[in-house]
Structure formats: C-alpha cells, structure tokens
C-alpha cells in the first residue's frame, strides 16, 4: 500500500508544527508538506516547507503538485492580533464578507468543509471543534491572560470554561490524520472550571470590571500590544463556552489524558506562573488565623471560669 502523503496548512504555528513532528516519526507516513507564510517554529527533519499563501488561488497548484491524499487545515486563526488584524484574519479563514467574530468564521469554515464533503463522499472529512488550548508550551490569548499579574474579569459574571491540553490536542490531530474518523467532534478535556476558580488555582488576583467599561479597557489594552483583548474574548469572559465531549470519547474513540482541571494544573506548575500567593501560604494563613481566634475565644472565656 502506498504511504500516506499529508499536507498541513499553518505549519508555522504550534499545532501544525507539532503535528508534522509526530507524523515524521511514523514510518507509514510518506511525504509531509507544510504550507505557511512563515517557516515552521518547531524543528522538523523531513517535512517539506512550502512558502505559499492559502488565500492565493495558486495553492491549488501546490495541492496538485504534491499529490497529497490527506489535508490538515490547521490554519484557522482564532487570534486576530498576530495575523495583522481582524479583516485579514477573516480573509485567511474564509473568503467572504465579514460579519462577526471567530465563531462565525469557524461556522463558515465548517459549512464550506461540509458542503465539500457532500460533493465528494469518497473523501473522509473530520471536523474538530477544539475547546481553548492550554499547556506549558502553547501560546494563546488565554495563556497570556493567565500570565497577567492582576487579571480583569467581568463583574457579575463567572463563565464556565473547558480546556484541552496541548498534548491531547496534538494527539487528536494525529489520530484524525492517521485514522478514519468522519464526522464533527467537540474536543476538550473532561469537566469544566469556573474562570474565578481557575484564577484562584493559578494564585491570581481577579479585578472585576463592569461590562460596559470592558470594551473600553479592552481597546486600551490592545493598544499596548501586551495582551490581546478582542471583543470576542470579552464575550468569552462573560459567557464562557462548554461543549458536550461525549462523541469524542465514544465515536472518535479518544479520551483526553488531561481533564480540564488537570490541564490547567499542568499549565500552572510547568509554565511557572508567578503566583500572588501559593497553596502552602493559604494553609499557613488558615492555621495562624485559627490559632489566633481560638486563643482569643479561650482568653475571653477563661476569666469567667475562674470567677465561678
């Protein structure tokens, strides 16, 4: 049987790069091509880098010339900052008139993919809807958000969030590439955490901000370029996002190794986040406070006892 030939878009990014690296180690995978405008950030041995713009119709030539049988579109951009702004991000993700946000893009990409699937039933099509990635290596708006010393949150709102560890994300991509898993799957670690809870686990101080002011603050922070607060992420801070991962486990056949909480803990310990306070400190405070208050109450009741 002929070896699998794979083309990966978005090879310069974390997931694309690491997927290529994993596939390189697989003897059953033949040639691997990586398309992007920038060279890969991960060191790759036998992947061929093709500098091309997927917005350009010439990409069809690349597809024909490489004669691939598997295409992994890992270049859906959820982070407008790096791609040079929202309008451009839109054009990379799909080519039509912008309406709102990444969710809309993702939805349109899915629709394109699905209609393609209908036209070509002979091609297996897997659509993965990833939860927010987290882990010690991956760089996302969420990991940068957790790296802030003081973290803004939406006053009166505590979103539930689901997280997928970077190792699990790569594993799922590898399996989707190597095996046949037609269908659409939500991909996330088991369980959810509240944003407030996640911040406390990370030892961060949350500063709740009234939602009408959040957009103002968001654009102010965006100007500094330190952290990217798009209206999309502000929405996320208010409502969060939770999906049912049942199908991933039963039909896709993969249960992520890290639950949402475990993924978060791994990120917190291995990326060495600067904690404002640690769990040990909290325990010490608990003990000190107990000793102090208990002694206080004893001292109050002791003189009464002496009188009797």
């Amino acid at each position, binding site marked *: 049987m002929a070896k699998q030939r794979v083309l990966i878009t978005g090879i310069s990014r974390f997931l694309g790069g690491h997927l290529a690296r994993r596939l390189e180690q697989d003897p059953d995978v033949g040639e691997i091509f990586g398309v992007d405008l920038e060279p890969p950030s991960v060191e790759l041995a036998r992947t061929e880098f093709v500098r091309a713009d997927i917005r350009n119709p010439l990409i069809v030539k690349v597809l024909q010339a490489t004669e691939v049988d598997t295409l992994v579109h890992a270049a859906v951009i959820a982070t407008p900052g790096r791609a040079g702004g929202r309008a451009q991000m839109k054009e990379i993700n799909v080519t039509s008139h912008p309406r709102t946000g990444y969710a809309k893009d993702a939805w349109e990409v899915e629709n394109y993919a699905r209609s393609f699937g209908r036209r070509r039933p002979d091609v297996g099509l897997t659509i993965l809807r990833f939860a927010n990635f987290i882990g010690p290596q991956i760089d996302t708006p969420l990991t940068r958000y957790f790296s802030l010393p003081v973290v803004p949150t*939406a*006053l*009166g*709102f*505590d979103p*539930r969030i689901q997280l997928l560890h970077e190792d699990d994300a790569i594993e799922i991509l590898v399996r989707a590439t190597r095996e046949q898993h037609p269908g659409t799957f939500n991909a996330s670690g088991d*369980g*959810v*955490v*509240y944003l*407030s*809870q*996640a*911040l*406390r*686990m990370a*030892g961060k101080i949350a500063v709740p901000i009234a*939602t009408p002011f959040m957009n103002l603050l968001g654009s102010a922070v965006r100007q500094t370029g330190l952290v990217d607060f798009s209206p999309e992420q502000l929405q996320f801070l208010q409502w969060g996002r*939770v999906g049912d991962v049942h199908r991933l486990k039963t039909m896709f056949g993969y249960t992520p190794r890290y639950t949402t*909480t475990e993924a978060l803990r791994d990120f917190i310990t291995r990326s060495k986040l600067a904690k404002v*306070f640690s*769990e*040990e400190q*909290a*325990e010490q*405070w*608990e*003990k000190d*406070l*107990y000793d102090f*208050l*208990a002694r206080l*109450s*004893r001292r109050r009741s002791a003189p009464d006892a002496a009188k009797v």
Partner: protein
Amino acid sequence: MAGAEVIRIQDGRRADPQLCRGRTADGRPCRNRAGASGYCKRHEPGAGRAATPAPSRFEADLERALAFLRRRVTGAYAIDDFGFDPDLTENVLLPILRPLFDRWWRVEQRGLENIPASGPALLVSNHSGTLPLDALMMKLAIYEGTGRHCRLLAADLPFRLPFVGEIARKSGNTLACAEDSTRLLDAGEIVGVFPEGYKGIGKPFRERYKLQRFGRGGFVEVALRTGAPMIPVSIVGAEEIFPMIYNVKPLARLLGFPYFPVTPTFPALGLLGAIPLPSKWIIEYGEPIQTAPFTPDAALDPMFVFNLTDQVREAIQQTLYKNLMSRRSVFF
C-alpha cells in the same frame, strides 16, 4: 529562614516525625509540630485532653469555616459540567435561605417519602409569587428532607442577568431545555421543573392557585425518554408573598422583563416593598407517576403526552385545593 524546608502535602510528609499524627476536623492531616507523644497539643489522645480543653463548638465551627475559606481562596473545589458547586451551595447559598424557610414562611413538608433516596426523579411543581422564591424554597426543602440536591430548570432570563445568573448556575440550576434535563436525569439527579413558567409566576393575585397552561408537555417527553418518575409538587403559600395587583406591561417591555409587578407595597414603599409577606407555606409531594412502564417511543405520541401532562396537572391542582382548605389562614 533561608534554608527553610518546604513540606509537600503528599504522603511523603506523613513520615515526618516532627509533625502531628492527628487529623483535623475535615480529615486533613494536622500540620502542627508534634510533642513527645507524636501528637500536637490539640490532638493529644487520652490524658493530654485533660490538660488542654477539648475543642469547643466555636472552635469546631471556626475550623470548618476557615477550611472552607481556604478551599475558596485556592480554588480547591469541584463543579460539574452544569456549573453546580456543592461546596458553595451547602455552606453559603442554602444556609442564607434557612431563616426564610424556618422562621418567615414556616415551610411544612408533606409526602417526603415519595421522593426516591437515590436515582432520577422529575419534580413538577406549580409556580407563583412574582419572584421565583418558591423554587428556592423547594430546593432547600428537598435538601433538608432528603439530603439530595434538586436541579431546577429555569428560563433564559435569570442566566443572562449579572450576579443572578452566576448564583443560579453555581447552585446547580440550568436552562429549561430537553438536552440538559435529559442529561441530568440520565445521571440520576432530581430535576425540578415549573411548566407554567412566567404565566404562573407572573399571574395576577385574583387568579391565585389556578394552575395555568402547562406549555407543550416537553417535561413529560423527557420523563418518558429517560424513564424517570414524575412527582407532582404542590406549593401553598407562595402566591401571597408578593400579591400582584397590576402588571405595567409597557414598562416590562421597555426593561425586557416578562412583567412589571405592582403590589400593595411595591413600588409605593420602594425597597421596603421588596420584603415578602410572611405567609404560611405547605409543600406537598404527591404519589410518583411512573413512566418506566412505557417505551421511550411513547414520547412521540402527542395525545399520550397530553394526557399524561393533564394527569400531573390535575394531581397538583387537587392537592393545592386540599391544602388550601387545611390552612387556618394565609399567615398561620
């Protein structure tokens, strides 16, 4: 001290002979330094107790409260997929409601034996009172009576509101939709539903204790699909807490609320009008209506669903009338 040794909370530290071998009230290893006996002063067994007085109730409470605070501060608590936070609910949210339950409305429960000790059940209740305090009282009643948590299904509005939505989620409630209720029942939870919705809670005072239309019977379909028994719940007393004499519809539309109530005290007395009247409450749980004998396909038959809906509705209405008669007055 520069060379201070950090001691992990894992099993390894058990071996440390310098630390007390006792356990704190919440079961964690004690972190105090041990004396000659291997225990600290507080956990010294037997003879030591005479020298240092046994922990008083205050101290036990203090220890529990501080342990709770530590869990909150470090995020060391678990929630489920719906956002239910039992630690917060049991230690803060429900205790806040207890005075209302015990003193203000003196809630009396009947038919608690009809609620299963384990496994799924769909509680179907009447809804009244302008604000959904009847739902909160039902939640607390079930917890007091059985130790189980009732997961309420609510409209979209509360979940969109700041603070309210957050607390609604954390106390274990979720949106009234077939997907969520099916998942909860399949997981063996008690689910509470108010099929009258806004029509029930926002009805004028003159229509008190008259059950409104029961939606399309979506709750019956869910019960049939999951095989969970339906338990009719009749709440007497909530109708009188905020008697709505007029509904300012244009104002409600402007604010995006389903109704804008005028009661004898609200908005005339301002914030004082938000104090509910201290009516006497009776919550009765009726005989379970079993759905397990029917096949899940029965949910596809609209006539069958309608009849079952009507049966539940009738059961609640009859119990309401019966308990209204048995109540001496609105307030006693």
